[in-house]
């Protein structure tokens, strides 16, 4: 009944019960928000005890290293997200609408894949697509070549391909959920009216999947901007992203202030993408299923 839905558990609660939120909130504040604030302070030069200034920002943000890092991050994130959307859509359509033996198991395995460490894919790609990997060895054997013909792994394409593999399941989850809401009768009627499969996909399935695609895509964008393990494992010299740059500055060069400046930009970018994601999910009325 509508009447039931209106009354929430906290309806008859005293204000003092609100205070129960404080312990977890304080823990989060001390271990997460406080360190983030200190990053910002150090980036603004507060750590040396002097007045806050934007000098460090001016120096770092105009440096070639930062501009390249930002460009790489964005190019990789956008390309990987686009790839995830296309691949995720295709694979989801296969699983949901052209059932084949094992398709339901695959749908469940997707959840498992999400929990695997991201660098696993990068590591395996070195065995498959590396200069001495399976693909190159096969091609060299078949065509009697002396040099490995496939050489994309140690460029941004290697990173992009790895990220597409790793993050496609994050697009498939909301997609499969939204596909399960499409009535099979709708597709049957369409095909009985003579619509071909591709037309059904473009006219019925794609529009229904749009909210899930937008939500999954913005989540992918967020995760790929933040990705670190894959970039580190691929280890290509000229593919430095913002997270890798932070690691480089702080751990290899002990330049904490520069690292903090870059971290402020990176965190800002991530929070903007996170807001976009929350907005998209709220706008389309879905639950936050994708992020958890």
């Amino acid at each position: 009944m509508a009447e039931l839905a209106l009354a929430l558990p906290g309806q008859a609660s005293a204000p003092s019960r609100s205070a129960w939120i404080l312990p977890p909130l304080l823990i989060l504040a001390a271990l997460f928000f406080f360190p983030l604030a200190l990053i910002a302070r150090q980036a603004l030069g507060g750590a040396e005890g002097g007045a806050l200034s934007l000098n460090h920002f001016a120096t770092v943000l105009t440096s070639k290293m930062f501009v390249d890092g930002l460009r790489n991050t964005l190019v990789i994130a956008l390309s990987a997200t686009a790839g995830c959307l296309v691949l995720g859509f295709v694979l989801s359509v296969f699983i949901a609408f052209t059932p084949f033996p094992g398709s339901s198991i695959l749908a469940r395995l997707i959840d498992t894949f999400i929990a695997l460490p991201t660098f696993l894919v990068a590591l395996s790609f070195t065995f498959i697509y590396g200069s001495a990997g399976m693909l190159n060895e096969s091609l060299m054997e078949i065509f009697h070549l002396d040099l490995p013909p496939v050489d994309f792994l140690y460029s941004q394409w290697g990173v992009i391909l790895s990220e597409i593999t790793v993050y496609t399941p994050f697009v498939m989850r909301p997609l499969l959920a939204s596909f399960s809401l499409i009535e099979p009768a709708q597709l049957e009627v369409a095909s009985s009216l003579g619509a071909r499969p591709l037309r059904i996909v473009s006219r019925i399935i794609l529009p229904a999947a749009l909210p899930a695609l937008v939500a999954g895509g913005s989540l992918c964008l967020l995760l790929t901007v933040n990705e670190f393990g894959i970039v580190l494992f691929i280890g290509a010299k000229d593919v430095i992203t913002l997270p890798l740059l932070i690691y480089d500055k702080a751990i290899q060069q002990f330049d904490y202030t520069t690292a903090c400046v870059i971290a402020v930009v990176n965190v800002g970018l991530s929070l903007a993408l996170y807001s976009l994601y929350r907005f998209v999910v709220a706008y389309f009325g879905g639950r936050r299923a994708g992020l958890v």
Partner: protein
Amino acid sequence: MRAELADVAPAMATPAQRERAGVDAASSGIRFDDVTVAYNDVVVLDSLSLTVKPGEIVALIGPSGSGKTTALRAVAGFVRPLRGTISIGTRDVTNVAPHARNIGMVVQNYALFPHMRAEENVAFGLRARGAPADVIRERVPECLRMVGMASYAKRFPRELSGGQQQRVAIARALAIRPQVLLLDEPLSALDAQIRRSMLDELARLHRDLPSLTVLYVTHDQTEALTLADHIGIMRDGKLVAFGDAQSLYRYPPNRFSAEFLGRANLLPVREVATTTAGMARVRFGADALIARNHHGLPDGGECLLCVRPHDLRLSPCDSIGNVLGGVVKSVQWQGDMQNVELDVAGHALRLTCAPMHAPPAPGAPLAIHFSASEATLIPEHTLRG
């Protein structure tokens, strides 16, 4: 801590322990006093005043969104009134936490705790109150027996049918010997056949526990008419009628009640003229009719004449009978009865009777009769349906 206390309690509990556990409370009534409830500035219960006497069953009926469930949940303490007071017995419970109200509650989808066996479910309230072990040992089988579930004590809810789950839910509510029992659409989730037998069961239960005060919320008039001593009819957050089941059915105080509780034929009539002992003559078009003027409507006014479909007959019934002429519009056979729809001077009238061998054909003229004592005048101006 409380559970441990109960475990080491001596074989017989002292009266003080029983008192503290609140397991022997006497029955008492419920009183709503000008209770208003609003969610986000939308009033869902509007100045409800209502008394349920000790040992009585009161049913609140009404369409969904009428505020009946809100009224019940206000007694339970899950919604806080904006205004007014709610008392159980002599105690004002308006600001008392739900767990301290000593009520039993049964909800539509049973809400049996899925991780507890039937007996653990029944024992839950007693344990929560720290009842002594001997009380629990005695009370749980007793309550399960009362609802005919003694042999299912060890089952988990998922191993029980819907009807069985509802019985356990009732036993669970009764185990704490509540001052009042709140039933929120308890039979709605059951299918028709089980619902009928559960209805008989509830009636029997109340004969066995005559001191139990029950507030029963339902949208089903049959449940209300079968069980309730008094019925309250709700609409748009307001109580629009309240009375004992019989008189509310026979003399509905307004159009909405007449149509919500049973089926009603309502004819607009005028020129009320009181005759003898609560009767009045009225005019319906050119016809003169006689009906009960139970609500004492003033002479000369306009009102509605209410007569139930099964009180309309095809042959004269008594000396002061009313007669109306009409045309048959449709005839429906429904197994154990016949439905005839008529047009009487532009008004649709429905008549139900035992199946006929030669039912009238659509289009045929037909005279219908009804006794003056089975027709009631109800005021026209209040609550147009």
